């Protein structure tokens, strides 16, 4: 081999041909226009939440704020009238939190241990259970709405926090079990066998081997369950009352408030308050959100 004296410039980029330049410009222009279209509704309500309602009514709902105010947020949070009770969205926001957090945690935990039992232990009827759970994911909720209403009444849980949480836990467990099963089925069986030889039983293997390996799917499942239950409306409106009402149901009432004068300013703030928790989760866990989509659905 001969020694190399000079290293040629290796970082030189090949210049684009004119047709490629036009192509790239068209590509970015299209993407930016579409992105702006997708962002538009969010941008509009963010701007409206800091505009005066008079300005919105005078200038149109779509517009740049000429004067800024934070008053809308305060009104939406603590004073706006929904169904004749002027408490703002605050109680509904907390009601949603009280429902969503336990339901998410419980359904995720059950889903994970179910997934472990289904994939790593010889179960009688494992195939049948899998099919049943899949049906549970796809079942239109309308078909079980009436039985749920009657059953919750029998249990004395109708229109209560516990009742609605129960509905979400049972329905969500199908979903979380399916998600976790699809993840855990790829865990090497050898690990479980090694643990058996090491003398670990079901629960010890679960705690010491499976749970430490599951943060990716736990995060994905929590993100999806949180978003789904927070955003859910049909059960929320059916199984709630003025004592306990999740924020999606309350928002619909606010929206349907036909008093003649539309209060777009604090309406926008209220809508944003309802959208913020899932959006925060989405932007914090975006990577996992996407992973959940692509892994959970394509199995």
């Amino acid at each position, binding site marked *: 081999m001969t020694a190399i004296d000079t290293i040629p410039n290796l970082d030189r980029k090949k210049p684009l041909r004119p047709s490629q330049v036009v192509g790239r410009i068209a590509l970015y222009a299209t993407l930016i226009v579409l992105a702006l279209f997708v962002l538009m509704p969010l941008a509009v309500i963010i701007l409206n939440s800091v505009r005066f309602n008079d300005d919105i009514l005078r200038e149109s709902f779509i517009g740049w704020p000429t004067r800024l105010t934070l008053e809308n947020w305060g009104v939406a949070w603590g004073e706006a009238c929904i169904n004749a009770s002027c408490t703002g969205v605050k109680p509904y926001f907390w009601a949603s939190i009280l429902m969503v957090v336990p339901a998410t945690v419980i359904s995720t935990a059950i889903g994970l241990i179910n997934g472990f039992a289904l994939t790593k232990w010889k179960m009688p009827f494992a195939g049948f259970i899998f099919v049943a759970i899949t049906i549970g994911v796809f079942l239109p909720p309308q078909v079980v709405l009436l039985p749920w209403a009657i059953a919750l009444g029998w249990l004395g849980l109708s229109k209560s926090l516990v009742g609605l949480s129960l509905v979400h836990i049972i329905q969500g467990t199908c979903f979380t079990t399916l998600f976790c099963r699809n993840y855990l089925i790829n865990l*090497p069986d*050898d*690990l479980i*066998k*090694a*643990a*058996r*030889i*090491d*003398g*670990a039983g079901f629960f*010890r293997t679960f705690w*010491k*081997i499976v749970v*430490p*390996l599951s943060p990716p799917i736990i995060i994905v499942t929590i993100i999806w369950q949180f978003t789904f239950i927070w955003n859910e409306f049909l059960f929320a409106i059916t199984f709630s009352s003025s004592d306990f009402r999740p924020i999606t149901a309350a928002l619909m009432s606010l929206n349907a408030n036909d008093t003649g004068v539309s209060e777009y300013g604090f309406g926008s703030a209220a809508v944003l308050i309802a959208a913020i928790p899932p959006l925060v989760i989405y932007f914090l866990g975006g990577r996992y959100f996407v992973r959940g989509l692509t892994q959970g659905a394509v199995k």
Partner: protein
Amino acid sequence: MAALNIENVWKKYGNVIALRDVNLDIRDGEFVVLVGPSGCGKSTLLSIIAGLEDTSHGTLTLGEIDVTDLSPKDRNIALVFQSYALYPTMTVRQNITFGMENRKVPKAEQDKAVADVAKLLQIEPLLDRKPGQLSGGQRQRVAMGRALVRDPQLFLFDEPLSNLDAKLRVEMRTEMKKLHKRLGQTIVYVTHDQVEAMTLSDRIVVINDGVVQQFADPDTIYQKPANMFVAGFMGSPSMNFIDVEVTGRARAITAVHRGDGADIDFPFGATREELAPYIGKTITLGVRPEHFRPAGEAGLTLTVNVDVVEPTGPDTMVVFSVAGKSLVGVLNAKFRPEEDDDVTLSLSLDEACFFDTEGVRIRGLAE
């Protein structure tokens, strides 16, 4: 340490019989290798010995104890997996102690055991790392450590070297052999690599289609294979099989291959009297590739037409045909014929084998 007795073991999955009447008596301290093509049942047998699978029929005795119905943790065995199956979220130390934790071994005892094993396997600097930070060879050592620390009566290995690169595999092979010499444990070792089987084992079990074909020491397996499957499976390149008709009479026997256009005579004279009952019948002659030598050495002289020459470094592998029959020979590296040349070779028939129509080797009269 203990002997392992496998008696009449069958395994059935659905309608498929994976193991058929397996009987093995593995002696205390013996290094036994299970070898066979993939899907032959060797891994199933290992799982059954480990207790990860139930038997459909038959019993297993380890030492004096019937372990057939015991769970893996009660069998006093250790298993090294092909994938190593190290717990990815635990450190090397935790991997090694997990089993002792489950058995509630006192902490001081655990520490001492880890220290001993780490020293033996030279993995002391790795103890606080996670498996993901280790090289393939290091992981293999940790997996061995996890098994050694149990101080089991029986070690099981499931293709433990197959994930290593070629050079490391040879090193680890030597090391395992040394370790066995030093510790004298009873070992059952599964592999599909016949070189591993030949080099490591005291005795080899050749399995095919769930049936034990032969259980014997490596030399016997190689030189006196029980049947054509064993003969063809062990050795690379494979043994050459030639259809021959036994002719002549007792003490003057010749095996004749009826080839295309010409016959090949293999004269045995009085050396193979076991063939006498087969006179007039067609059987199979087996000759190993290394039984071919350059012309001039002792043996039967054959003129062959060279098809392919493949130098491997120390040897030259030659594919040639004679009387329309394609054969493989392994000769020394200096022997380099041109392709399509006619060359003369010498074939030593001293170690030739014969198989009857069922494929079973015809035993010599002295055996």
